[in-house]
C-alpha cells in the first residue's frame, strides 16, 4: 500500500502545494455563502415555522381549564409507547358555526374592496410622482414613506380623532355648511375602509411608482403619433404596461388586509366582522386556544393561495424582463 503512491507523488505534490491555499479560500468562500443564506432561513425557522408548528399542534387538541389551557397532543405512556390525542374537531367546529365562515368571507370582501379603493387612490399618486420633475421625485417619495416613521397604532388612533362625531372631519364639514348633522363614520365599515386605504397606501404606491417611473415615454409619443388621444393612450399603453406594478401593489395590500386586526378593532363597529377580530375574541375573551389556533391555521391556508399566485406572477414578470 505504501509502495503504490510514490510514482505519482512527485508529480502531484508540488501541484497540491500550489493549489491548497486556493482550495482553502474557495472552501471559506463557500462556507461564507452558505452562512449568508442560512441567516434569513434560520430567522424564518425560529420565528415563523416553529411558532406555526406550535399553533398547528394546539389546533389539534382540546381546550381545558389549566395552564397551559389546552391538552397535550402527545403523551408518553409506559413501556416507551407514545399516545397521540389529536383530532380535527376544532376545524369541524369552525365549519359548523357560521360566525367563522362569515368572518372569513367578510374579511375577504373588506380586503378586496379596500384593495380596489387603494388602487384607485394610489394609481394617480404614483402616476403624478413618476411624471413629476426629476428633482422633486425624491422629496415626493419621502413623503410617501414618511408616515412609517410614526407607529402604525398611533396613526390609526389619530383617525378616531378625525372621524368621530365631534371629530375634525365633522367639525370642518359643519363649518363649511356642507352638513347640518354630524356624520356617523367611526365604528362603521366605512371607517375600516378609510383606515385600510390610508394605512396600506404606501404599499400600493411604491411598486406602482417603481413601475411607472421606468416606463419609456416615447411609447406615449408613438401612440399619439399613430392617432391615439392621450386619455386613450393611458388605457391602452400605460395601464397594460404597469400591470406588474398593479398586481404587486394589490397583493401587498390584500394579503395583510385580510388578517387586519387593529383597524377593524379601533375604527370598526360591533357589526364589522373580520377574521382578525374573531380570532382575538376567541383567544383573549373565550380563552379557547385550540379553536383560535384552528382559525389561524385556516387563515394561513386562505392566504397561501394568493401568496403563491403573487409569487408566480413576480417570477413570470422577472423572466419576461430578462
Amino acid at each position, binding site marked *: 500500500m505504501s509502495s503504490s503512491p510514490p510514482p505519482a507523488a512527485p508529480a502531484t505534490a508540488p501541484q497540491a502545494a500550489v493549489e491548497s491555499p486556493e482550495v482553502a479560500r474557495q472552501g471559506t468562500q463557500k462556507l461564507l455563502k452558505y452562512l449568508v443564506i442560512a441567516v434569513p432561513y434560520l430567522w424564518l425557522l425560529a420565528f415563523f415555522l416553529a411558532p406555526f408548528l406550535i399553533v398547528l399542534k394546539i389546533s389539534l387538541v382540546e381546550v381545558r381549564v389549566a395552564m397551559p389551557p389546552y391538552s397535550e397532543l402527545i403523551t408518553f405512556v409506559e413501556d416507551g409507547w407514545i399516545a397521540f390525542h389529536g383530532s380535527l374537531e376544532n376545524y369541524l367546529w369552525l365549519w359548523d358555526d357560521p360566525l367563522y365562515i362569515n368572518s372569513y368571507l367578510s374579511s375577504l370582501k373588506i380586503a378586496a374592496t379596500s384593495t380596489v379603493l387603494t388602487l384607485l387612490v394610489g394609481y394617480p399618486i404614483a402616476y403624478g410622482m413618476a411624471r413629476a420633475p426629476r428633482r422633486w421625485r425624491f422629496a415626493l417619495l419621502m413623503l410617501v414613506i414618511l408616515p412609517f416613521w410614526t407607529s402604525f397604532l398611533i396613526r390609526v388612533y389619530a383617525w378616531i380623532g378625525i372621524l368621530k362625531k365631534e371629530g375634525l372631519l365633522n367639525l370642518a364639514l359643519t363649518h363649511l355648511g356642507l352638513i347640518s348633522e354630524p356624520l356617523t363614520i367611526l365604528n362603521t365599515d366605512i371607517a375600516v375602509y378609510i383606515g385600510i386605504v390610508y394605512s396600506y397606501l404606501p404599499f400600493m404606491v411604491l411598486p406602482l411608482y417603481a413601475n411607472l417611473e421606468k416606463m*419609456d415615454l*416615447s*411609447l406615449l*409619443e*408613438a*401612440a*399619439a*403619433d*399613430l*392617432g*391615439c*388621444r*392621450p386619455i*386613450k393612450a393611458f388605457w391602452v*399603453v400605460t395601464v*397594460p*404596461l404597469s400591470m406588474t406594478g398593479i398586481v404587486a401593489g394589490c397583493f401587498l395590500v390584500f394579503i395583510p388586509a385580510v388578517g387586519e386586526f387593529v383597524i377593524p378593532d379601533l375604527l370598526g363597529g360591533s357589526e364589522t366582522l373580520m377574521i382578525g377580530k374573531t380570532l382575538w375574541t376567541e383567544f383573549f375573551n373565550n380563552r379557547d386556544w385550540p379553536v383560535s389556533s384552528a382559525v389561524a391555521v385556516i387563515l394561513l391556508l386562505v392566504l397561501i393561495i394568493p401568496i403563491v399566485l403573487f409569487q408566480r406572477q413576480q417570477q413570470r414578470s422577472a423572466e*419576461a424582463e430578462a
Partner: protein
Amino acid sequence: MSGAGTASNQARSGSSAARQRWAPWEDPNEKPHVRIVGVTKRFGDFVAVDNVSLDIYKREFFSLLGPSGCGKTTLLRMLAGFETPSEGQILLEGEDMSGVPPYERPVNMMFQSYALFPHMSVEKNIAFGLKQDRVPKAEIDRRVAEVIEMVQLGQFAKRKPHQLSGGQKQRVALARSLVKKPKMLLLDEPLGALDKNLRTQTQFELMNIQEETGITFVIVTHDQEEAMTVSSRIAVMDHGRIVQVSTPGELYEAPLTRYVADFIGEVNILEGRGAQREGDHLVLQCPDAGCAIQTGPYAEDGGDESLWIALRPEKVRISKEPPADSSRNCMTGEVWDIGYLGNLSTYHVKLDSGKMITATQANMARLIERPITWEDRVYLTWAPDAAVVLRD
C-alpha cells in the same frame, strides 16, 4: 465608404436618367408639399432651431444632416407635432399645422428607439394606428398583411418585440409608421442602432420602399454617408441653422461654406488672397500652397479679403514629374505618410510651407509597383474646376 458609394451608383444606374430630371425644387410652378417658414424653437435661453425656412416637395427623400445638438431632431419633432415652434409656421399641403396635435396630423414618425409597444405582438403594433382611425377589421388585416409582406416580417407576425433582433424591430417600426400611408414619414436616425453591414443594406431597402409607396420621407441623421446615399436633397444644419440645402452631388462638389465642406467627406482647405477675375474663374495667390490657384466658376468678385478654397483629396493628382506650368494649380512637397486602404491610397504630403495636404489615388497598379513612396518629392496638380471657393 467607397464600397457603399459604388454600390449606390450601380443601384441607381437603372433609373438614373429619370432621377436626374426629377427636381421639383427647381420648378417654380411646383407647390411645396411642406413649407417651414421662419421657424424658431427656444428651450428657455437655448435656441435649438434658429429661424429655419425650408420647402420640401412631394415624394422627396429629404435629409436633415448635422452633428448631435444641431437642432435636427427638434425640427423633426416640430413636424410631428411633439414640439410647438416658438416662432414661425409649418404648412402641410398649404394647411397651417400650428395647434394641430400629433394624433390629428396626417404624419407618422419612426422613432430612434423604435418605441414598439412591448405588450403587443408585431401584428398588433402595426395595426395600432389603423385601429385608432376605426378602419374596418377586414381592411386592417389586409393592410397589415401588406406592409408585413413589404418589410419581410411574415414569420414574425405573432412575436412580441422582445423576441426580435434589432434589425427586425427596426422593420416593425418602419411598417407601423408606413401602414397609415401618411402624407409625410418622419424618420429619426432610423438606422442608428444597426450595425454597419445591416445599415448599408437597409438604406437601399428604405429607398425602394420610399419609391414604391411614393410617401415623402424626411430623415434625421448624423451620418453623412447615409444622407448622401438615400437623399434627394440634404439640409446641413449647424447650431440650429440651415447652412446649405442641396442635392448630395452639389453638396459634395460645391459646398458653400467651410463647415459643409468639412462635414461632408474629406477636404483640404487653403487660404487665398488678392482675387483676380479671369472669365468665370478667380485666380488667387495662395502662400500656403506656394502657387496661384485658379478656382472653379465663381460669380462674385473676391475683393481684397482672404477667401477659403476647398480641394477634395481624390481630385488631386500626385506625380513625381513636374507639370508644364508649375506656377499655377501646382503644389510641391514631400510625401510624409501613406495610408494604404486596398482600393485607394491616401498620401499626406507636407508642402514647403509646412501645410499638410491629403491626396487620394486609386491603386490601379499592384502595391509592389507603386511608384511613389515616403520622402519622395512630388507635384500635386488638379483640374481648374476642382478648387471650390467657400463663403467663410
